[in-house]
């Protein structure tokens, strides 16, 4: 037990989780922006934009995140020599954020699109019938309902993103799963308690996010 408590003094467990949270926040912003643009592409009446959105989603959704991360670090940084910062750690952190954003943008796009698809055609027709033109119809009638419909899939994407920040270990970012690996390597006899510490840490972060998503989507559900 003593050895276990010393681990907390020796390793910065909270700091590692803080790294996961920072990755989550930045990649959530990045993937939300990119995903929204892609969703607009996919529901636009312009054929070529739809094609771009669809190909992006199909390609990225079917690629393992690990490959995207490794491609970033070994190929784009290692071979193409694209550097974001002279500080090594910061450079890899930025790479991790970009890889996470690229990957989850595909899921954000699908979440928003599925939200738009929950709005019945009649809503738009009714909006036009009372004389609303495109922008007011979108702003007042369609999008508010679409966003509420998108809450559950968006919440699920955010949860998956939070867990996937561990893959940043492939870019040698100092986050919780990598720290766990180091801790077990040096204290194999405490393997189970180390694992449980990190695992419960993720439970504490992830489970409330799930409850919040369910609560929000129930509370904001559109009655039809």
């Amino acid at each position: 037990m003593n050895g276990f408590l010393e681990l907390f003094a020796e390793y910065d467990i909270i700091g590692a989780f803080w790294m996961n949270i920072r990755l989550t926040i930045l990649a959530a912003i990045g993937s939300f922006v990119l995903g929204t643009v892609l969703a607009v592409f996919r529901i636009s009446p312009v054929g070529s934009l739809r094609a771009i959105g669809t190909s992006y989603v199909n390609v990225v959704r079917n690629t393992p995140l690990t490959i995207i991360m490794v491609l970033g670090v070994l190929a784009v940084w290692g071979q193409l020599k694209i550097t974001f910062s002279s500080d090594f750690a910061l450079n890899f952190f930025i790479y991790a954020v970009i890889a996470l954003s690229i990957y989850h943008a595909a899921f954000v796009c699908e979440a928003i699109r599925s939200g738009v698809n929950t709005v019945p055609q009649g809503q738009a027709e009714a909006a036009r019938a009372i004389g609303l033109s495109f922008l007011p119809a979108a702003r007042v009638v369609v999008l508010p309902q679409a966003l509420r419909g998108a809450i559950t899939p968006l919440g699920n994407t955010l949860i998956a993103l939070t867990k996937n920040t561990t893959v940043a270990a492939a870019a040698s970012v100092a986050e919780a799963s990598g720290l766990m690996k180091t801790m077990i390597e040096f204290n194999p006899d405490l393997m189970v308690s180390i694992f449980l510490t990190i695992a419960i840490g993720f439970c504490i972060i992830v489970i409330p996010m799930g409850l919040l998503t369910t609560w929000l989507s129930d509370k904001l559900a559109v009655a039809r």
Partner: protein
Amino acid sequence: MRTQATVLFDAPGPRARRNILLSNAAALVVVLVIVVLVLIQLNAQDQLAPDKWINALNANAWTNYYLPGLQFTLQASGIAVVTAMVFGLIFGFMRLAPFGPIRWIAGVVVEFFRAVPVLVMMFFLYFFFSRIVAPTGLIASADAAYYGVIVGLTVYNGAVIAELVRSGVKSLPKGQREAAAAVGMTNNQSLRLVEVPQALTAMLPSLLSQFVVIIKDSALGYLIGFYELLQYSRQLGSGYSNILQTLVVAALIFIVINFILTWFASKLAGRLSSRTGGDTAPVTSTTMGPALAVK
């Protein structure tokens, strides 16, 4: 006939059609510019050199690297699909049990495995198999990563499937259960003979989507030293200093396999909808609890 895809846009008139044409042209130009910029950048770093691509695509690359790698990827994923199904069915049944404590225990186990990142699970299992199981002689220590990947994929995806079973049964019309009760079936018989079989039919498309998730997550094995497609591609790439090319090929292999599976899943969802009282929509996020859709 409406031609557009979504609720937001009305059928285009002459002016809208002209604008669409212009936007198409603009998008084409932007895409071309991006492609050219990427090619220039690739060329500047000498990544378009023919031998780099040839070495990433020749017979040696396929027979000695991609195909053996793919074999291990599919082998581990295939085994994990089966074991995850078994795990999922057992815990799905437990979560529907009439006896409270069984439901709660299953609930805690399922929620725990869904909340813990697969990579954390794999790191732990790798050490568990290499430091605790291997010394007993039960498995070769070289196989620790292999078992770590399979068990890690099993518990996470098994927990997801358990949720699928539960939500599949819950989404069945109430009449199914009532009819089973009316012909004198016990609670257990109703679950086993009426509800779960229908839920399983309804789940088939989502199971296929889960297979895609498993194949993608098997690439995490790379981080614990499991020799799968990504690991082999990286090895090939370091050997011929064409890592960019080999990783692109590996990514394309993953994309093609997963794309076919995804496509098949959506076809299947359409065909099966008449065979169950439940929902066969390619289940992603909306029909089940949180934390399931992605990964």
